[in-house]
């Protein structure tokens, strides 16, 4: 089922959490709402779920073309997984998962054995068989997360909304769980939206990434697209490392010796889009001195100081290539930029 949010504005007193945001989530996709804290992503998710309401008269939410703005949370058929799981701490894992079925009016409620069967199959799905009788306090963070997911899935939701699903977990569990979520999504094909502030997480598992900043949507696209073609300086800096280099520079866009004349504008260059060469008189490129070398890892990082204004520029290159160059700290080198981007209205220093 697709989700459509149109012209959503949400203010808390003087603070604007969402400023005329529109977004459409295609059916069956795994979509990440990515942004720094305070960008409005969680508020947007909660408005989709019916846990918050947009400012009166400011727009609507529809599921598969049907306007659900006035439908209350319990009737929207959304599965919502809370950042801190919000498991009912006085109930066992089984009772937590069965809750959504137990509270249905009598005529809609499945019988006991059907509920038990559903709980068992969900526990199998989230790989927690045998933990039915545990209480939430007896589970690890990753297990709680999966119980919360099973509980949300128990009511057969049409969309799944996850608020910072990996935020409260340690790094290792986080990585495992996000791969697992991606596999799960491939299995059940439920339209899923998750909120995250971790760009690596969003780029790794989402079909589509929605980048938010200061109550607005900055860019929407596939991970590849938003990484390669950031629509704004914000997106450039938020997704991955980037060098902000003040123009002019020699060796721009691999174009040899041509210096751009537009003084003062900023070029955004990914570290892996910088070529490094040994210095030869007459060779094209920007002259720089190596400040430090970091060779622990598969790619080597080289920090250089540009000659004319002592600006630091970071380059990433294969280790073998760096070794074959045979350069070391304090050596003078030439930099060439394979690809860069400038933004017309960006005067930031």
């Amino acid at each position, binding site marked *: 089922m697709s989700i459509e949010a149109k012209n959503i504005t949400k203010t*808390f007193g003087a603070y604007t959490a969402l400023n005329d945001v529109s977004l459409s989530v295609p059916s069956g996709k795994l979509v990440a709402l990515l942004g720094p804290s305070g960008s409005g992503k969680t508020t947007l998710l909660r408005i989709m779920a*019916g*846990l*918050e*309401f947009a400012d009166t008269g400011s727009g609507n939410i529809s599921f598969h073309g049907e306007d659900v703005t006035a439908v*209350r*949370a319990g009737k929207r058929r959304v599965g919502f997984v809370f950042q801190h799981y919000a498991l009912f701490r006085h109930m066992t894992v089984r009772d937590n998962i069965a809750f959504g079925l137990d509270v249905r009016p009598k005529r809609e409620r499945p019988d006991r054995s059907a509920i038990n069967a559903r709980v068992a199959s969900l526990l199998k799905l989230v790989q927690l068989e045998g933990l039915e009788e545990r209480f939430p306090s007896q589970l690890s963070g990753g297990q709680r997360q999966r119980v919360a997911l099973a509980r949300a899935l128990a009511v057969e939701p049409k969309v799944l909304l996850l608020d910072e699903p990996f935020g409260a977990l340690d790094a290792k569990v986080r990585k495992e769980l996000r791969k697992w979520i991606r596999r799960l999504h491939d299995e059940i094909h439920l339209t899923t939206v998750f909120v995250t502030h971790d760009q690596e997480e969003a780029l790794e598992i989402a079909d589509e990434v929605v980048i938010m900043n200061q109550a607005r949507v900055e860019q929407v696209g596939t991970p590849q697209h938003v990484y390669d073609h950031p629509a704004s300086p914000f997106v450039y800096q938020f997704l991955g490392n980037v060098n902000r280099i003040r123009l002019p520079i020699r060796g721009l866009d691999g174009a040899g010796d041509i210096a751009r004349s537009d003084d003062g504008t900023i070029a955004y260059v990914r570290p892996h889009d910088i070529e490094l060469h040994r210095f030869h008189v007459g060779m094209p490129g920007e002259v720089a001195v190596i400040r430090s070398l970091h060779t622990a890892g598969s790619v080597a990082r080289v920090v250089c100081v540009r000659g004319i204004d002592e600006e630091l520029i970071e380059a990433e290159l294969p280790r073998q290539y760096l070794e074959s160059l045979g350069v070391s700290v304090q050596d003078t080198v030439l930099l060439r930029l394979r690809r860069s981007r400038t933004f017309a209205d960006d005067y930031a220093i």
Partner: protein
Amino acid sequence: MSARSERSVIPGFNLSLGFTLTYLGLIVVIPLSAAFLKTAGMSWSAFVDAVASPRVLASYRLSFGASFLAALVNCVFGLVVAWVLVRYSFPGRKIVDALVDLPFALPTAVAGIALAAIYSKNGWVGQWVEPYGIKLAFSQIGVFIALTFIGLPFVVRTLQPVIEELEPELEEASYTLGASRWQTIRRVILPDLFPPLLTGFAMAFARALGEYGSVVFISGNMPMRTEITPLLIITKLEQYDYRGATAIAVVMLVVSFILLLFINLLQRWSRRHHRI
């Protein structure tokens, strides 16, 4: 007040707030306003006569003086008790800890007759000081004893959580910077304990001002000497002097509300202070 500033998905707001306000209005607000309205009907001179006659002034002096002293004593010993209960371990610590709440749980009349029995001249304690001409029960000292009993838990219970949350790292940091134990206590620990100590003092003082049950049995209730203000209100009521009783009550209410406001501000301040 019933205006909803923010829509919420959780139901029951109108029902719960409506019930709360109605109940609050009927039980608390309307009766309280009765006292003020009754007094508003008095002329100024009648009011002054009622609340500032020599006998009433004497009762203020006793009530405020004894409450102040009792709260002060509770600050000193309450600090020691709270410190001992949090920082040290000794057999029976948990029982002692639970017992601190006794003045909350023990009906005041029971406390009153028990204290009177102990401190009267034949009592367990009274008999030892009686030969020296010291009268504990049926004197102003008796009032002070009862009010100390009643205020005891306030200081201890406000201090305890704060002492529990004192970070040992702060003390350790102080030692590594070369401070002595005494310097650490004076300059690192006590400043943190000051706001809750003051709060506890104000609470114990406020409670003592209004206390009646435990005091009347031990004070002897002699006009001008050992008569506390709440007792005077009852005396006036028994003489069918409703206006006089209400006038004194209004004075006490105003003092209580000022104290409540003060405690409120103190707690807000100390929370902010504590959070850093």
